[in-house]
């Protein structure tokens, strides 16, 4: 007798919920030891609604089709020398930031979801995490492939995985994910699936992919489209996770609220890098960081938190500080990278006159008063042949690991600083948000690997910054870093422009 074909509903049941079984010779407590120590109470895993409604066999089919299209476009881009059609070579520095700062995070996300998928008692949640883990691994691979073409023609893209573990500013994204991955499984999901993927991911992906489109980078745009359908599923998972946890037990509500407060703040700080990319690194700009924050957080996030009110959840703590900070953080970040450009894998520059005017128009209350005078001075120094590089090392926040460069919410020309004494040692923070995170779990953050302190303890292979950058980071001085103006990359780009036929030039 021929075997009956399963209908879709049965197939879905067999390939998701039926993957679970009742243990007979081990207790569930022993099989899933991480389910309880965070204080989260799960009364019934069967209440979990699978948000993906997708089985693994269908998943392979969809993803394989997406991959085929994606790699066809990568090939076409490479064969047509797509990199020569960019708006300007300065744009590639945003890709260097993306490849070294974001791509390793996709890998960390893969590792995190693979791990928590093992540790949930509910089969639905396990399958959801498994699929997301595979998605994240695919994103790592496609990002590397999307940007590998640029590695043949531009500098600084040569060793991103090595740099992720070592270069000072990359400890910011690295520590964000390590904090999440060393938490319990429910905090990991709240941190990554909800706070990052659901609340903040649009701020990362939409500007990056629109920025790529505006600047002629079709390889990255195509990767973005390919990843976006996965991201939509991840966001659905993020919301499902939070609602499930909140509905399981009222005792979960204050725990989740504290995680939302923490991970909103950590995510907001991490996105400082994206703000800088939008306002400074895109030759053709999409929208300002302040505008993006208004659309993607203040409006979309506002509606989300209104929706969560019925569970007893309020908007994240210190959200009002982000409304003030949106006027400042991109300029503050660019000021850090400009003066420490000798220790990065990308170039920086002072904005052109046209760009300064764009910034003045986008930030009418702050830019001309605070940031324009600084940049005009730096431009004068550069014109005199004294381009400003800061010869000292900066003080870092113990939690977010960003230099203490943010200003007080109520005093925008005073550096923001908090400190506490813990077990006889002094610790410093950039903000109330980071200070609160430390004070709840100080023993976690006293172990932070702060790059500046590690260099000064002699743990980064050299006595001076030049040796650390060359030998420990694998960044070539004067080639991968320093100012864009006059760099080998700038010269190469000008050479290409000069080689183009005249009509091609004017069309661009």
């Amino acid at each position, binding site marked *: 007798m021929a075997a009956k074909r399963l209908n879709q509903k049965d197939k879905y049941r067999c390939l998701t919920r039926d993957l679970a079984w009742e243990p007979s010779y081990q207790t569930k407590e022993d099989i899933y*030891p*991480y389910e309880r*120590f*965070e204080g989260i109470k799960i009364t019934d895993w069967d209440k979990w609604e699978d948000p993906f409604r997708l089985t693994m066999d269908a998943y392979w089919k969809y993803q394989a089709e997406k991959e085929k299209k994606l790699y066809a476009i990568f090939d076409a881009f490479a064969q047509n020398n797509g990199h020569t059609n960019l708006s300007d070579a300065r744009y590639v520095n945003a890709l260097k930031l993306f490849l070294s700062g974001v791509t390793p995070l996709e890998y960390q996300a893969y590792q995190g979801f693979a791990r928590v998928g093992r540790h949930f008692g509910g089969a639905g949640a396990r399958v959801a995490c498994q699929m997301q883990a595979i998605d994240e691994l695919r994103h790592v691979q496609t990002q590397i492939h999307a940007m590998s073409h640029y590695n043949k023609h531009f500098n600084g893209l040569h060793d991103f995985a090595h740099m992720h573990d070592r270069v000072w500013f990359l400890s910011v994204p690295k520590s964000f994910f390590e904090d999440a991955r060393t*938490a*319990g499984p429910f*905090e990991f999901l709240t941190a990554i699936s909800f706070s990052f993927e659901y609340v903040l991911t649009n701020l990362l992906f939409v500007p990056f992919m629109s920025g790529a489109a505006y600047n002629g980078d079709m390889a990255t745009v195509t990767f973005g489209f390919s990843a976006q359908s996965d991201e939509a599923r991840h966001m659905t998972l993020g919301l499902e996770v939070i609602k499930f946890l909140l509905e399981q037990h009222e005792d979960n509500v204050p725990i989740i609220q504290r995680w939302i407060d923490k991970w909103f703040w950590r995510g907001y700080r991490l996105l400082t890098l994206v703000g800088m990319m939008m306002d400074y690194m895109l030759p053709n700009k999409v929208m300002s960081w302040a505008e993006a924050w208004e659309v993607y957080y203040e409006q979309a996030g506002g509606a989300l938190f209104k929706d969560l009110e019925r569970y007893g959840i309020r908007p994240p703590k210190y959200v009002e500080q982000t409304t003030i900070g949106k006027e400042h953080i991109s300029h*503050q970040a660019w*000021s*850090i990278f400009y*003066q*420490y450009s000798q220790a990065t894998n990308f170039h920086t520059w002072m904005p052109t006159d046209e760009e300064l005017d764009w910034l003045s128009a986008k930030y009418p209350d702050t830019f001309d*008063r*605070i940031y324009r*005078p*600084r940049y005009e*001075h730096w431009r004068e120094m550069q014109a005199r042949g004294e381009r*400003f590089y*800061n*010869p*000292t*090392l*900066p*003080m*870092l926040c113990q939690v977010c690991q960003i*230099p*203490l*460069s943010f*200003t007080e919410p109520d005093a925008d*020309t*005073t*550096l923001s*600083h908090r*400190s506490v004494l813990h*077990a006889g*040692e*002094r*610790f*410093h923070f950039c903000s109330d948000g980071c200070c609160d995170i430390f004070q*709840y*779990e*100080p*023993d*976690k953050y*006293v*172990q*932070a*690997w*702060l790059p*500046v*302190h*590690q260099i*000064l*303890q*002699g743990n980064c292979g050299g006595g001076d910054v030049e040796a650390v950058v060359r030998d420990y980071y694998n960044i070539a001085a004067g080639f991968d870093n320093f100012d864009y103006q006059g760099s080998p990359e700038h010269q190469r780009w000008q050479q290409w422009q000069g080689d183009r036929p005249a009509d091609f030039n004017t069309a661009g």
Partner: protein
Amino acid sequence: MPVTAIGAYQAQSLDRQENFNGLQLVYLTWDRHLMFCAPFTLPLPPDMPFADFIDNVVKPAIAAHPDAVRVDFAQAIWRLDDADFQPDWQAGLAANGIGHKSLLRLDTPGLDGLNGSFN
């Protein structure tokens, strides 16, 4: 709660003073001079006299700023870890009460940065 963990957990601070090979860290910020994006992290001998600290460390660190040549250190106002501070110029840093990872704030009245922009 020192940390949320599945069992007993003993954390070791990574930046204890003994890890700095005989030196201590001092952070220094110059109020109203945001051109320097963040306070400086300075590894120093705890017995370095405050006068040497000014001449050999602070002056080179801030030299790139046009206000640097106009600073009158005799008139400077200091804060140490958020409290008023009067340095003893002949005494060492530690003897002055400047601890490992202390933050010193330098305030130079009358100097308000590039064209008064606090930069």
